[in-house]
């Protein structure tokens, strides 16, 4: 079962939706295996100033996407690349 924090990010995902004029878009997964995530970022002076997502996937996938957008905001590109699976899992308790 999911933790309260995961359920909170599933029920009230942060930064959910498409971004207009993003500086970068990434897509991972595919609908056949059941998970697809689109991540949008806006970058200024090498800092991610905004991030948004859309995810087709289970509750955990949506919560993880939401948490990732929270984690990358305000970080530099290099710092963001350091964010691991574990960091996201830890942040979700």
């Amino acid at each position: 079962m999911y933790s309260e924090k995961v359920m909170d990010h599933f029920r009230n995902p942060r930064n959910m939706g498409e971004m207009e004029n993003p500086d970068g878009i990434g897509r991972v997964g595919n609908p056949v295996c059941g998970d697809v995530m689109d991540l949008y970022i806006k970058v200024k002076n090498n800092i991610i100033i905004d991030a948004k997502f859309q995810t087709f996937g289970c509750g955990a996938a949506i919560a993880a996407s939401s948490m990732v957008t929270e984690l990358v905001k305000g970080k530099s590109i290099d710092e963001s690349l350091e964010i691991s699976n574990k960091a996201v899992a830890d942040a979700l308790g």
Partner: protein
Amino acid sequence: MRKIYLDNNATTPIHPEVIKEMGNDLEITYGNPSTLYSIGKEAKAKLEEARGRVANIIGAKSEEIVFTSGGTEANNLAIFGICKAYRNKGNHIITSKIEHDSVLNTCKALERDGFDIAYLPVDSYGMVDPEELKKAIRPDTIIISIMHSNNETGTIQPVSDMARIAKDRGIPFHTDAVQSIGKIKVNVEDLGVNLLSIASHKIYGPKGIGALYIRKGTRIQPILFGGHQEKGYRPGTENVPGIVGFGKAAEIADKNIETERLARLRDRLYNSLKEKIERIRLNGHPTRRLPNTLNVSIEFVEVEGMILALDDLGISVGTGSACATDTLEPSHVLAAMGVPPQLAHSTLRFSLGMDNTDEDIDYLIEIFPGVIERLRSFSPLY
């Protein structure tokens, strides 16, 4: 908060009269039915009364009912038991691709022991074609096991046609009727099957009890060994309270079969959802289907999100099958029907039961489109 239970194909709530009967039994008739003194004889009488009630719901004779620990054991006993009895005659088994895991994994276990298994395909409605069965039969086929109706889609199989084909060739026919009993009329004489599985917890009875119907004259060996209980087909001191509850549930289900009412509620639900939600499709046969079952794919929304969001609103619904919930593998039933994997990931099963009312359906129709709209806004595929 309003609570609406719409996963009756996974399990049903226990009927209040069943609880009453079992409570009485636990308190008073605790005796071992195999003993000679009066308290044991009372238990034996209760056991036989329950056997009669279970036999009645499928039009069988009492002596053709063997109690088991549930549908899974009934399916294991039927298939392993026939294979043991007929092992000298052949090693070919015919089943279908859409069976419950308790049949499929039994067949896979036998496959590892050297048996040959034919898994019959289904059409896009999830229906087995009796012609396919005819083609699959070999001189060394010793059992055919095809479910009566599918737990995920509710599609009802042409069992009597297939049982006739089997009978003409002298091959024992087993049907897993766990999902059909209590929802539609099932009669072993009309079907012409040799073996049929039933589970109590799908008909408002307790969990942990079921039965295998074994037509008189069918050659079958036990798979458990011990005492003489259940004529040696299923040794072990009987689960009398469970059996008594099962018997009561069967008696009630036989009287109160709700085919028309459930079908009306279910069709109203689907027709309204179809009007309010775009890109929704029905899985299963449009008419030859259990009256309580509605399996739909709602494009661009992943099933777990739907289940969690509905749970937050007090509504319990299932994925195709409860067993698949843990694995997140797309359903083998939908795959066999040719449903693409991405749609299978977007599939929800509503299964109605005796407690559901028109008000429940109204509430669901009112809130569900909003849930879908919200979840679709999360989806990059929409």
